């Protein structure tokens, strides 16, 4: 028994991501084909070169047919993947394992979500028959429980903490404003966000992820084949996933100041990658900032800050684009938008751009001046106390 990972066995050799928008003029089919074509072009291959597909969507479609039909795939296996908001990352994880196993030479992980055909704002849950006793609270409501809990535990003034998480949104909007693919491209100040009406606890609409349609994809091959496709592949160092036991919501010891599933996934990922000091070894991170308090807790759960200190590191600018450890340089869910099934692959797309020095110059992180070269993706689904957590580590070199 053991989680051994597939360090340096699989490489990403091509990625594509369409702009995340309210794509009123595009359906899921259109977005998937567009993202796939960008990815084939990136890897220098055609669709028939791909041996197997892993297709993630949370609520927009069902079965592999939703990909094979619009793409005109013939005789190819397509696996539909769903794991809440971590669906896109899960598609990449499964495709990578398939390649590492030797079952296939070339696999595509692709994720997409058509959110804006529902007729309501926000994300809408797929109706599954139930006994009617399920918790009746929005995700915003559940995540809003974090702020008062964190403030009380660490003795931070609640109004100051509210400003701290608004600074997280400000940072992600700053980054998104410089990213042509992001949904929201306008800077927004923390003061503006604090002045907005609260919709859940102290959180305003601008503390929530953008709701967008979108799609993104990756091509993975065995590491030894990577240079057949590109000169600068990204090697997978770790893929970790934890599905929680749901006890947090009923455990009196749970205090809403940590996301244990994410911490466990991070610990597993660091072990797979051989990382002992994440703050000293990770150069950048894409994390699941579904709500601003989520990113605050993640800085501690991922080991980027000591427990109780993330709030001051946020104020110090540690995680800014020009900070010591840039987080969500592409704008994050906050500004890039959150088409559920696509987001995990969008996060990896940002590592694909940044670690290879291919981001737009005005937002390219200066990696040459530091000895850290690894990137981290964190993706989650669910709520505090009841969630799935994903962490991956990628790098441009093999050990």
């Amino acid at each position, binding site marked *: 028994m053991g989680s051994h990972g597939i360090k340096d066995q699989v490489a990403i050799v091509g990625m594509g991501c369409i702009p995340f928008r309210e794509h009123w003029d595009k359906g899921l089919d259109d977005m998937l084909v567009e993202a796939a074509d960008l990815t084939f072009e990136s890897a220098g291959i055609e669709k028939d070169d791909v041996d197997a597909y892993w297709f993630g969507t949370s609520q927009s479609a069902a079965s592999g047919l939703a990909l094979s039909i619009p793409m005109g795939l013939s005789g190819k296996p397509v696996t539909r993947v769903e794991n809440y908001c971590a669906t896109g990352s899960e598609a990449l994880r499964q495709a990578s394992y398939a390649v590492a196993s030797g079952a296939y030479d070339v696999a595509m992980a692709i994720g997409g979500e058509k959110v804006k055909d*529902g007729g*309501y*704002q*926000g994300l*809408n849950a797929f*109706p599954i*028959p*139930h*006994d*009617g*006793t399920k*918790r*009746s*609270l*929005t995700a*915003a*409501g*559940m995540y*809003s*429980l974090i702020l*008062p*809990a964190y403030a*009380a535990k660490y003795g931070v003034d609640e109004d100051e903490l509210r400003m701290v998480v608004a600074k997280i949104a400000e940072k992600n909007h700053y980054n998104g404003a410089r990213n042509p693919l992001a949904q929201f491209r306008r800077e927004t100040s923390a003061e503006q966000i604090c002045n907005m009406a*609260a*919709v*859940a*606890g102290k959180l305003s609409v601008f503390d929530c992820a953008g709701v967008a349609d979108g799609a993104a994809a990756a091509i993975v091959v065995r590491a030894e084949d990577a240079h057949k496709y590109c000169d600068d592949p990204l090697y997978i160092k770790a893929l970790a996933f934890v599905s929680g036991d749901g*006890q947090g*919501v*009923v*455990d*009196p010891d*749970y205090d*809403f100041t940590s996301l244990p599933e994410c911490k466990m996934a991070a610990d597993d990922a660091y072990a797979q990658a051989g990382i002992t000091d994440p703050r000293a070894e990770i150069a950048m991170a894409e994390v699941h900032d579904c709500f601003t308090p989520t990113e605050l807790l993640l800085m501690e759960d991922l080991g980027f800050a000591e427990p109780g200190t993330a709030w001051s590191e946020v104020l110090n600018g540690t995680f800014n684009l020009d900070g010591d450890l840039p987080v969500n340089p592409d704008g994050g869910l906050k500004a890039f938008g959150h088409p559920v099934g696509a987001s995990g692959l969008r996060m990896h797309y940002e590592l694909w751009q940044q670690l290879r020095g291919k981001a737009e110059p005005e937002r390219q992180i200066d990696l040459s001046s530091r000895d850290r070269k690894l990137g981290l993706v964190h993706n989650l689904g669910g709520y505090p106390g009841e969630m799935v957590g994903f962490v991956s580590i990628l790098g441009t070199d093999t050990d």
Partner: protein
Amino acid sequence: MRGILSFGTYLPFRRLDRTEITSTMGSGGGRGTRTVASYDEDTTTMAVEAARTCLAATDVAPASTYFSTVDPAYFDRTNASTIHAALRFDPSVSAVDMNGSQRSAVGALQAALEGSRPTLVVGSDIRIGLPTSADEAAGGDAASALLVGSDDDGPVLAEYLGGAVATGEFVDRWREPGESRSKLWEEKFGEVAYAPLAAQAWAKACEATGIDAAGVTSLIVTGLHARAIKRTAAKFGVDNIVDDLGSSVGNSGAAHPGLLLASVLESASAGDVVGLAVYADGVQVMFFRVTEHVGNFTPARSLATQLANGAPVSYPKFLSWRGTLTVEPPRRPLPDRPSSSAALRNIDWKFGLINPNDDGGTPMANAVGTVTTFTIDKLVYSPSPPVVFGVVDFDNGVRMPVEIADVDAADVAVGDRVEMTFRRLYDGDGIVNYHWKARPVRD
């Protein structure tokens, strides 16, 4: 000896000041307040609350449950079975509805008193009417529960001495199926129709029991025809006609006979003779003698406490809760109907509130806890947003995330003490989604 073994009452938290009706509409209304069931209550949930209070004060378990209301949550299926499930009764306990009019409620009480097994008699009503109507102002929402049985079952608080009925058939008020409004015939007609029935029932009841007016310590007179009662009850010759709670609760229809009996028994002394006269499609008169056991009985939650603990609801909010004033629904998908098969599998949790998250199956319905953290959710679907949602740590060690009822969002605080209450969360496709919420402890 047969009679009342225990009693419980339930008044919803909200109160409508009747002058608000007048000031808003220019007519209607009156003086005092009426009780108002919250948007997440119906006659079944209020009945559960009254029955819980009744049964908490006694060790006697009923063998039958009779439920009466004029405003049932369902037709063509039994509502008493929902009460049965929430109270976690054994399947061998029967549960039947006796619905449709205030007469059914007093008839249920008579049937229980004349029966042979311990019987829980629950009356519950939400009294409605069109804006400015007399029914709107005079009505009140409440539930009452009486446990009826013999001294073989347990100590009898009030012995049933007997009574009489005079049934009449005349159309002084009527409601078409599906309508929320009752229509009334000219008021004086009812007075004329009720007068001989009242005289007959009173005389026969006195004859049957050997009680005369001078021997009656206190007389409860209730019915929906206020004028008939006012003009005829004085003729019974009893000095002490008890407060009908019209200025604080309003007339709670099927709940009211039990509510007033409970009100009297809360302060009665051994030896008191209590008369009950109910005007509803005839007149029914009953006499009870209070026993020495009343001195040892403490209501689990007194009517007096509940009367003291209300909070106002505005007239427009009252109208929207009753569906009279249609407000913009939340811009969220309507909730899907709860699955009947899933509900049956999880009946202990959904109705009985047995904690499914521990091996012991801890009963949570009577647990008291403290709000550990909470939030106000303005985005989530609710029939009356916003939703106040708390994480509650109960004194028995269990944590549950629950919605908090009967609070103004601004008044909730970490550390608040809460208890559980049976509510309707929403309905989908006509299926009422019953489950539990927390509410502040207000004793």
